[in-house]
């Protein structure tokens, strides 16, 4: 057993990094979101403004659109990724030659940086260089509509996100699925349950915590989504695909509006913490 002092010592290096470089900046950002502190506009007297920053953000139409966008984005993509990923894992349950190769290939969309995939998809679907014009024409079909219009940009972003994450979900679920003992499957089949019923009664109870964690991972990523969208659409057209993450970046580094940038960032943090809290509650409830 280590003495208490020794145990604390183990955390010292970590604290040396995290406290000055994570906790303190975060605290600073939190505090200044209640003031009119503007580092990019020197010479201003710093005043305490209470919740003004937060309120003005909430009144900003662009931000509200961003929140709506990200809600749609997160809900649609996460559900599709979970269902699709699970389905994929179920498909791959039975071992076959080359399965590990397939698993590896399917991991690629996630392993590759979102910047790269965002760019790839961007020039796959945009009007100038996209394939959507060439191939239908070649096959004599009418060309597909331009996918980055105001109406279709968000669905397109959702689809690319699903493309990216669904195989990843499969990758995580498959080991868990394989860990289910075969006799449980057999028993369910003997009882005459249809496939969906089998899944519900055999797999899901065991995989509950895993699915919960995966959901949280996906949600956190979707809520803060930034690089993917930036490369794919640049937040547009207009504000069709702006997310709070993108909004925050824009405000801070393009418009040099520190207050707006930090404050909107904290909205995102609040949302993720909320989701995390739900997770912790549900996880602990299941464990008892």
């Amino acid at each position: 057993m280590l003495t208490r002092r020794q145990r604390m010592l183990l955390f010292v290096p970590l604290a040396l990094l995290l406290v000055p470089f994570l906790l303190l900046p975060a605290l600073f950002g939190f505090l200044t979101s209640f003031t009119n502190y503007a580092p990019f506009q020197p010479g201003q007297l710093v005043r305490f403004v209470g919740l003004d920053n937060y309120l003005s953000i909430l009144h900003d139409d662009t931000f509200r659109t961003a929140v709506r966008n990200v809600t749609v984005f997160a809900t649609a993509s996460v559900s599709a990724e979970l269902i699709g990923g699970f389905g994929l894992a179920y498909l791959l349950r039975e071992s076959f030659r080359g399965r590990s190769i397939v698993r590896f290939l399917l991991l690629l969309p996630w392993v590759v940086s979102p910047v790269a995939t965002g760019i790839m998809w961007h020039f796959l679907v945009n009007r100038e260089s996209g394939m959507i014009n060439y191939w239908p024409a070649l096959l004599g079909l009418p060309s597909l509509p331009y996918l980055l219009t105001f109406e279709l940009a968000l669905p397109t972003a959702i689809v690319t996100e699903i493309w990216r994450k669904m195989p990843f979900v499969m990758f995580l679920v498959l080991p868990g699925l394989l860990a289910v003992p075969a006799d449980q499957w057999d028993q369910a089949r003997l009882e005459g349950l249809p496939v969906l019923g089998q899944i519900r009664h055999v797999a899901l109870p065991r995989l509950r915590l895993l699915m919960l964690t995966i959901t949280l991972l996906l949600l956190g990523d979707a809520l803060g989504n930034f690089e993917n969208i930036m490369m794919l659409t640049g937040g547009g057209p207009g504000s069709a695909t702006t997310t709070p993450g993108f909004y925050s970046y824009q405000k801070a580094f393009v418009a040099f509006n520190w207050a707006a940038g930090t404050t909107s960032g904290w909205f995102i943090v609040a949302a993720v913490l909320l989701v995390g809290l739900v997770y912790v509650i549900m996880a602990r409830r299941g464990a008892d």
Partner: protein
Amino acid sequence: MASTTSPTVASAAAVPQRRVEARRLTLGRALIWLAVIIVTLIALFPFIYALTTSFKTQRASYDGTLIPWLQYEPTLANWQAEFGSGGQETMRALTNSATIAIGATIVATALGTLAGWGLGRFKYGIGNRNLVSWFLSQRFLPPIATVIPFVLLFKQLGLIDNVLGLIIANATFTLPFAVLIMRDFFADFPSDLQDAALVDGASQFGVFWRVALPIATPALVAAIIICFAFSWNEFLFASVLALRNAKPYPLMVAGSDTVRGIVFGFVSTRMLIAITLPVVLSLLVQRYIVRGLALGAVKG
């Protein structure tokens, strides 16, 4: 895909039954195969297209064609430009990326393993679960939320446009992963070996260094891979903290638009270069990625 072998003795009733079963077996599996192939193609499609485009001329890259020689004339121009005339910039960006990723990984895994061993092995007053939950919350936190105060701090410290600054930033961000992965491993792993070493007279540090660490190699590899991949692909902090000297590669990939508009040939080549490393890494350690991610996921 093979059907059952034919029996030596078969009743008249059994034979048609088995034949039907064999056929159903093949049809079901064929469908699964088909689904798998389609999904794999969809997953790989953008990469294939990028590969093709990297060999196209500027004009042809707007075509949307796919098959070289049949539909367009392939050219090495993009690749030559990337490594030839643009070579210096490319190499510097790649070096930056490598330095940052290696540095951040070393820091994050070192610090994380220490803390993870402590968390997994021993009890803490605040409550191990609370600490773990805290680290977990870090893991799900999108970096965009903390980047802004970060910038200000680094500006004060003079760490803007400095590789060291990015190492610190990436280490901070990947540290929770390392802690969680190592903690899960140590929490699961029976401590008999470590206790035995203690009885044999090893110091606590000796136990850590000579017994715990070697056992933990799979988890360590997983942590290293994850930290490295994240740092290599990291874009947000890089775009904000690096201006000229410390530019890592993702910035180059994104900055492929020139006066002539986005040169898709360059985009493709740079993207393919950028993804080479993560792809090779994940090929080498596929098993460990699953273990590492699943460990963190299953134990919460």
